[in-house]
């Protein structure tokens, strides 16, 4: 740029670009403000670091990518054409060092022949050592802007919306459609990605001006319609679900009410796409210099922003629309040096402008910051013009992305040389320019292909397409991946048709026969925070809190995420590590007594005379002979016969049972029971109610557990696998005598609202008996030593009851889910992996390690859980080993090469402690 191109009045907004202060007008895009301040060089290209300016005035911008904002609010790769300047905006150029103007990365351009299409793939040729050399440099060079390291301080919202009609695009066609639907009494949402409505009317207000737009907007709102600006329809999904990304604050800006962006999930009965079209650039040598701009963009800067992007203007076109640009720029004070019209005379001759027909741009000259001259072939003869702006128009590409994402098909419009929407699979229609693009003249590039860029963002030239073709890439999808054409933030919005045209030319076919790549969501880039929504700072989900959460929190435990739950992992005393605390807690259970919170266990109350039938369908063990007040271990199978969960079932009354199962499988078990209740046996007289959260659960375990419980309930505790209703601290509780630790143990269930006094009373009594609280880590030690299974560990979805030595417990009457699957021959094959115990001969057994007979041999199993003997010491583990039941005493190696850990182990039975089960029986 040669200097400021609009008066400096009314410039109340200040911003910085690469540390320098500038001024802008309200309503300016960053691109407009940079142009107004005479800045032509805005970025560096991805691969060759070529100087790039501003090419467009919209979301399709491939060149002017900047980082906007600071610290956690920094947003890299933001198009300068898609951010509206606010006071204090901080923008930085990207992909350059040490500065934008003097970028050493431009040396890559000198090695352009090396970095041609597919160079990345070619680095994989030859020995791996070569790649190890390349890798460092490729990784250093890859990418554009840098992702912020700080946490984004803003919030992101996700909101649902429902409407009769969703109109995408607030240009003349979209506004008219929205107005008609709204005034017909329909619920209407109209979305526009710009900050104001009007679209092409902002640039070309000849017939319908801003007053018409405002009047329509008022009528739409008055009739109950909802208008969302700065909102882009980013994806079109099944069942007319359209996602919208809305900017409530500009990139890097402090949002007024804390929410920076909102992701809308809109379910519409009908969708009207008024998405317009995108102007195409032209391919010629050095067509990527600052000062070369799309024709409509130049017109937009002049008319909307009052910015004249050049004073000596050459316009290259193959259609009539560019003449509107010539007239607009001329009216703004620019000199139209020449109009290069690819069409033969008399095209364009009626405008009274210096038109050259049969004229195609050939090359340009300039420097890092601006354009200096344009050379064209006019009737085959070279001609040059001094110019600081070249406005090009290679025709128009309808924005058909959403139509295609909806499952719609396309057809070829020969007059416009473009694909347009054809059939729709959902209730969607396209109106306006996207349905009826302007006719255009077929233009074949004549310049040498090497510097004729077609994908500006990825530095893909015509020569790259030619090379891909020469190297055998025939499919357009392969071409895309080999050249990287159409990738990155612009997703080929300005490049696809040029590439297709070249590919078709090479194939000797028409463009439609060359094919088209798939348009996938999102239409424009969306931030990761927007996708994460309100959970962006919390792994996308709410933390599930125990009913006794505050009680635990007061003891400052180490917390353990378990699904969405957070449970105490251990309660360290002063100076204790996790391992020390857990071992102390486990020893307390083995030698005295301990208590822990087991509230998260899945719990279902099954009521009704057909409860047994339901349970004996859902569970693989028998239930019918269970006496009132008794319970038993049970497990459940998938249809294919594999174990997927286990738990206990208790008969509370003649027709009332309590089924417990694993915490992590609670939702899956609810689905399993619902499947039995509502699908397999809807005729049953039974009620299944999920009471997981209704009951808080407290487990007391250890040699003293029985005496502790006797004190708590004031009566003889129930024997193992029996139950009794009692009171603790005057609160009604249900006591189940069940053990997961291997010690005499009880689970106390209480209405969660009344859990605190019960817990407090239990804790006081346990501590008085020399016991302590224990967490998940100690529980894991205890259950491994006892050889109890855990879902997700030993029960990993691949183990049959036989593999886990549970087959003796199967209901011999059959009829349970998975019974048929168990008869599959594969489940009886020799060599299946089976549950084994492992004890270390040397070293500590790494959890998750492979079991091999010798180094270098194939794995024959793996370690599912490992721990140390609680009282006697020594590393032990549970594992799954091929043919494990018959391999007792065999020595193996447990190895984890990725962690550099290994241990020599001996195969033993999977019960390291009280295998006879004498400790939990009176």
């Amino acid at each position: 740029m040669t200097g400021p191109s609009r008066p400096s009045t009314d410039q109340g907004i200040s911003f910085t670009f690469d540390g320098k202060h500038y001024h802008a007008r309200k309503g300016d895009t960053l691109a407009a403000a940079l142009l107004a301040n005479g800045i032509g060089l805005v970025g560096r290209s991805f691969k060759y670091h070529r100087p790039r300016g501003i090419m467009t005035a919209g979301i399709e911008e491939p060149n002017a990518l900047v980082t906007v904002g600071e610290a956690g609010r920094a947003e890299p790769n933001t198009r300068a054409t898609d951010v509206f300047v606010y006071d204090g905006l901080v923008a930085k150029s990207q992909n350059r060092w040490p500065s934008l103007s003097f970028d050493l990365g431009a040396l890559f351009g000198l090695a352009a022949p090396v970095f041609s299409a597919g160079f990345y793939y070619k680095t994989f040729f030859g020995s791996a050592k070569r790649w190890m050399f390349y890798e460092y440099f490729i990784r250093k060079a890859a990418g554009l802007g840098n992702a912020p390291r700080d946490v984004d301080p803003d919030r992101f919202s996700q909101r649902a919306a429902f409407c009769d009609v969703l109109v995408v695009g607030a240009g003349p066609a979209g506004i008219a459609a929205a107005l008609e639907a709204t005034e017909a009494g329909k619920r209407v949402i109209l979305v526009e990605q710009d900050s104001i409505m009007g679209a092409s009317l902002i640039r070309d207000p000849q017939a319908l001006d801003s007053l018409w737009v405002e009047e329509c907007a008022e009528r739409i709102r008055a009739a109950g319609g909802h208008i969302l600006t700065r909102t882009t329809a980013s994806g079109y999904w099944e069942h007319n679900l359209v996602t919208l990304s809305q900017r409530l604050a500009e990139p890097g800006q402090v949002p007024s009410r804390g929410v920076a962006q909102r992701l809308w999930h809109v379910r519409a009965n009908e969708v009207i796409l008024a998405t317009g079209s995108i102007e195409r650039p032209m391919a010629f040598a050095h067509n990527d210099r600052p000062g070369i701009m799309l024709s409509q963009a130049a017109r937009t800067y002049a008319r909307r922003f009052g910015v004249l992007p050049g004073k000596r203007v050459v316009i290259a076109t193959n259609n009539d629309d560019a003449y509107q640009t010539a007239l607009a720029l001329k009216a703004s004070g620019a000199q139209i040096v020449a109009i290069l019209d690819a069409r033969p005379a008399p095209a364009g001759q009626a405008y009274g402008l210096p038109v050259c027909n049969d004229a195609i741009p050939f090359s340009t000259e300039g420097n890092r910051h601006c354009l200096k001259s344009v050379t064209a072939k006019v009737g085959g003869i070279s001609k040059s013009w001094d110019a600081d702006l070249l406005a090009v128009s290679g025709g128009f590409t309808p924005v058909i992305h959403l139509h295609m994402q909806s499952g719609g098909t396309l057809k070829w419009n020969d007059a416009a040389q473009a694909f347009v929407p054809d059939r729709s699979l959902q209730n969607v229609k396209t109106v306006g320019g996207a349905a009826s693009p302007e006719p255009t003249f077929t233009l074949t590039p004549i310049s040498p292909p090497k510097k004729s860029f077609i994908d500006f963002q990825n530095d893909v030239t015509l020569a790259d397409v030619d090379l891909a073709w020469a190297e055998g890439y025939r499919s357009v999808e392969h071409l895309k991946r080999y050249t990287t054409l159409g990738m990155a933030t612009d997703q080929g919005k300005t490049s696809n048709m040029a590439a297709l045209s070249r590919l078709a030319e090479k194939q000797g076919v028409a463009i439609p026969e060359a094919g088209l790549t798939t348009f996938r969501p999102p239409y424009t880039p969306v931030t990761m925070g927007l996708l994460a929504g309100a959970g962006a700072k919390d792994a996308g989900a709410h933390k599930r809190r125990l009913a006794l959460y505050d009680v635990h929190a007061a003891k400052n435990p180490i917390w353990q995420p378990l699904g969405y739950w957070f449970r105490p992992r251990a309660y360290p005393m002063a100076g204790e590590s996790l391992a020390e605390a857990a071992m102390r807690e486990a020893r307390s259970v083995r030698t005295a007594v301990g208590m822990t919170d087991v509230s998260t266990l899945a719990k279902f109350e099954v009521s009704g005379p057909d409860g047994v039938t339901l349970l004996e369908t859902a569970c693989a063990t028998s239930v019918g002979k269970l006496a009132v007040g008794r319970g038993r271990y049970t497990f459940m199978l998938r249809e294919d016969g594999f174990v997927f969960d286990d738990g206990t079932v208790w008969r509370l009354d003649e027709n009332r049972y309590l089924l417990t199962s694993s915490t992590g499988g609670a939702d899956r078990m609810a689905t399993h029971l619902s499947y039995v209740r509502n699908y397999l046996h809807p005729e049953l007289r039974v009620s299944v109610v999920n009471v997981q959260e209704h009951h808080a659960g407290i487990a007391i375990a250890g040699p003293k557990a029985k005496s502790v419980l006797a004190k708590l309930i004031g009566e003889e505790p129930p024997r193992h696998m029996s139950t009794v209703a009692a009171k603790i601290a005057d609160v009604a509780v249900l006591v189940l005598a069940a053990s997961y630790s291997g010690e005499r143990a009880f689970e106390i269930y209480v209405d969660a609202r009344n859990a605190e006094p019960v817990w407090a009373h239990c804790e006081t009594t346990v501590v008085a008996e020399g016991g302590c609280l224990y967490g998940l880590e100690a529980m894991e030690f205890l259950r491994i030593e006892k050889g109890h299974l855990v879902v997700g560990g030993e029960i990993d979805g691949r183990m049959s009851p036989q593999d886990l030595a549970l087959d003796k417990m199967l209901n011999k009457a059959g009829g349970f889910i998975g019974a048929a699957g168990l008869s599959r021959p594969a489940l009886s094959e020799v060599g299946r992996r089976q549950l084994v115990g492992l004890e270390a001969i040397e070293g500590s057994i790494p959890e998750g390690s492979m079991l091999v007979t010798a180094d270098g041999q194939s794995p024959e199993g793996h370690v599912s859980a490992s721990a140390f003997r609680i009282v006697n010491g020594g590393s032990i583990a549970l594992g799954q080993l091929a043919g494990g039941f018959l391999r007792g005493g065999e020595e193996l190696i447990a190895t984890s090469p990725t962690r550099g850990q290994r241990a020599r182990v001996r195969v033993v039975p999977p019960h390291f402690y009280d295998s006879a089960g004498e400790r939990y029986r009176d």
Partner: protein
Amino acid sequence: MTDVTVSNLPSAPLWAFEIWSNPDAVAARFAAATGFALPKMGTSGGNDALRLIRYEPTVWLAEGDATPLPSILDTDGALTAIGGGVTRVLLSGGGWRRLLMEGGVFDAECPTFAAGSSAATIIDHVNIRLHVLNEDACLAYVPLSYAEGIIHFWQEAATALD
């Protein structure tokens, strides 16, 4: 600025009221005993002492004095206590519909979702049952473990509704 207040209500006796046989007979006994009909799907009904919300084809959430319910059910269904696992949250003010669209998948802004309507839905990944009290208030039944998280979510979202 859209107006809505999020309030955590005291716990209440809540029950799952399920019918497995003779639904017409149970409905007749119910109406005779309580003075109001068993509500249909998507609706609630009741009086000051007892309110029922139908949330599954054969299951109602009962709130209040459940004393008459076992005899109404007789051998045709079961009553199961669930109140310990549910937190009641009152959303009051004209903005409750807009608030429920945050993180939601249900059309709470639909005019037919009016007083006496109910719904079982997911909001910000949490399973929630809704009962419209009137145009300015909606009662939400939230799982206890998620209550603090979802209340925080609503309170934060309420500051940025439009």
